[in-house]
């Protein structure tokens, strides 16, 4: 993480405010940027992430749509091809299923299929993460699906600082970018510079330096990994926490180098483990650091069940710091 040194140059804002600032700055900078989605204007979304934008930019640029995810996402693809830079808001990540043809068969392929002639500079903002007691259709983390598709980029910010810098870059990118925000993180505060900045896609961030084991954690799992690292420190295990920040493009080098250094790795992601992001990241580490590893790469993801409503059941489906702590201790031969 870059040095964010003094109180004069930074302030503490929430993740939601960071997202809003990124949008507002990019909308001021570029009149082609428009927001489309359900209840994005006066309502500012149910999460209130967009509150205030319609007051500044008007309903011509912050546009409430019907409840038609496929329709307005498809419209955004065409608008992006013809001169606008739309940011579509898909209220819950579970609803990306409704946009799949538009994103996978249209947005992702337009540039390649046209031999590089048409571009789709659009952003889809949506959510991931369980633990809001919202049951199986409002709690999934489906970012692996988009990460699987050539032509798409996938961003998973884990702090207010990353959210702002990455979203600004995503909006300026010439490709379709899907930006997943953890619902549980909207109120999380963190230091964000007063000065404008951007963060490139495809550059992992070392969230904590360590020597004994590498945690590769994404989005909602970064804080879990950091909390586990603190617990491990008390028993003398030094954990490094790497946040890839984007599943594609993927900073393979930073992941592999860290695993080579520590010789052990656990990958933690809130998506389903089976055929998921943890599987891919673990494979990258296994291939790249095999001869330096002292243990198999371990994966922790969401339990392979539809997310249940009942709080004790729901909580059991998501990796927590105790699970990460236990897995790390075992991997380090300290059980």
């Amino acid at each position: 993480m870059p040095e964010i040194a003094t109180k004069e140059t930074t302030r503490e804002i929430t993740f939601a405010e960071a997202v809003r600032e990124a949008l507002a700055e990019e909308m001021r900078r570029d009149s082609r940027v428009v927001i489309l989605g359900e209840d994005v204007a006066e309502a500012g979304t149910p999460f209130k992430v967009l509150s205030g934008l319609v007051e500044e930019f008007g309903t011509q640029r912050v546009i409430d749509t019907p409840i038609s995810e496929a329709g307005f996402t498809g419209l955004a693809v065409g608008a992006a091809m013809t001169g606008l830079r739309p940011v579509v808001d898909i209220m819950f990540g579970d609803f990306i299923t409704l946009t799949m043809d538009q994103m996978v068969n249209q947005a992702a392929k337009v540039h390649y299929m046209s031999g590089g002639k048409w571009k789709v500079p659009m952003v889809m903002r949506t959510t991931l993460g369980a633990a809001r007691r919202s049951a199986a259709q409002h709690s999934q983390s489906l970012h692996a699906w988009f990460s699987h598709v050539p032509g798409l980029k996938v961003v998973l910010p884990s702090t207010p600082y990353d959210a702002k810098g990455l979203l600004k870059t995503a909006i300026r990118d010439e490709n379709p970018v899907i930006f997943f925000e953890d619902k549980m993180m909207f109120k999380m505060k963190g230091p964000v510079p007063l000065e404008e900045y951007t963060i490139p896609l495809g550059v992992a961030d070392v969230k904590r330096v360590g020597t004994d084991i590498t945690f590769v954690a994404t989005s909602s799992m970064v804080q879990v990994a950091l909390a586990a690292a603190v617990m491990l420190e008390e028993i003398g295990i030094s954990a490094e926490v790497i946040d890839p920040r984007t599943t594609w493009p993927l900073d393979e080098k930073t992941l592999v180098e860290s695993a080579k250094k520590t010789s052990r790795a656990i990958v933690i992601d809130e998506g389903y483990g089976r055929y998921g992001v943890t599987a891919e990241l673990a494979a990258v580490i296994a291939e790249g650091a095999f001869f330096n590893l002292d243990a198999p790469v371990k994966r922790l993801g969401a339990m392979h069940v539809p997310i249940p409503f009942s709080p004790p059941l729901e909580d059991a489906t998501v990796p927590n710091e105790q699970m990460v702590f236990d897995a790390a201790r075992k991997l380090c031969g300290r059980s």
Partner: protein
Amino acid sequence: MKTVADRRTKIETGTGAELWLHMYRQMTAIRLFEEQVNELYTRALMPGLAHLYVGEEAVAVGVCEALTPEDYITSTHRGHGHCLAKGAAPDRMFAELLGKEAGYCKGKGGSMHIADPTTGNLGANAIVAGSTGIATGAAFSAKQLGTKQVAVCFFGEGALGQGVLYEVMNLAQLWKLPVIYVCENNFYNEYTHYLETTAGDIQARAAAFGMPAESVDGQDVRAVHAIATRLVERARRGEGPAFLVCNTYRMRGHHVGDINREYYRSKKEEQEWGDRDPIKRLGDWLIKEKHAGAETLHDMESEIRREMEAAVKFAVAAAYPGPEEVDQDVYA
């Protein structure tokens, strides 16, 4: 470049024959293009399959002649006619169909994905109703940016089964977007008659959104053009979208390999529609109205045939993309 508006002025001043002859030429070019495609398939020179537009030429030509070069279209898996009518060059089309570097998409798209920004072609689309969002989005841009462009979304009646079509028609009418939804009812959703798949009335579906919904004989290019011109100009004035059903017929199979069709339609039906061939129909009218002699039309056809043969020759001789192209263009 000569514009559509120029030609229309001439019609109004009594020299419109030039426009109809141009349309005759365009329709004939599409027909002869498709015959060459069939030939390439038969001779195993073309990879994959292609979906021929034979019999439906009056729709693409009648509509595209109502557009400016800057206006947008989206097309379908049966898209060669739309692309040509919007101004694509046959040699680069054939090159794309053969997967050659010189093709419109460097051979990466093929028959079902011809796209060309220089002619406003946002791309043919192999997902049924897949381009309806894109066309509507292009109209959204045009309105947002104040460019006065119009977008035409071509789709077959099979797309009436897809929900996204109705989602974007709702958006277009809510926001008064300059987009024309052109439904080519060629009777067959692949191998199934549309009456087996389509409840109620097609026009009524669009009318329910409050947009003008019209129907036209899709074998009569003059009728298609007249109504398309009216709807396009209306959209350009900012009065919103429209829906146009063009009743036409797919004279060939679903694709070039669909030869034995008796299990889903009769020879008699094909013969009846063959008698309503849109090119012959315009040709007969041109002769009757003394806009052209039979010999002129015949000479035009011969000339186009030679052009198509030369275009095929170009494409066959053209180089494939180098292997280094395979992972280029995935990202912009």
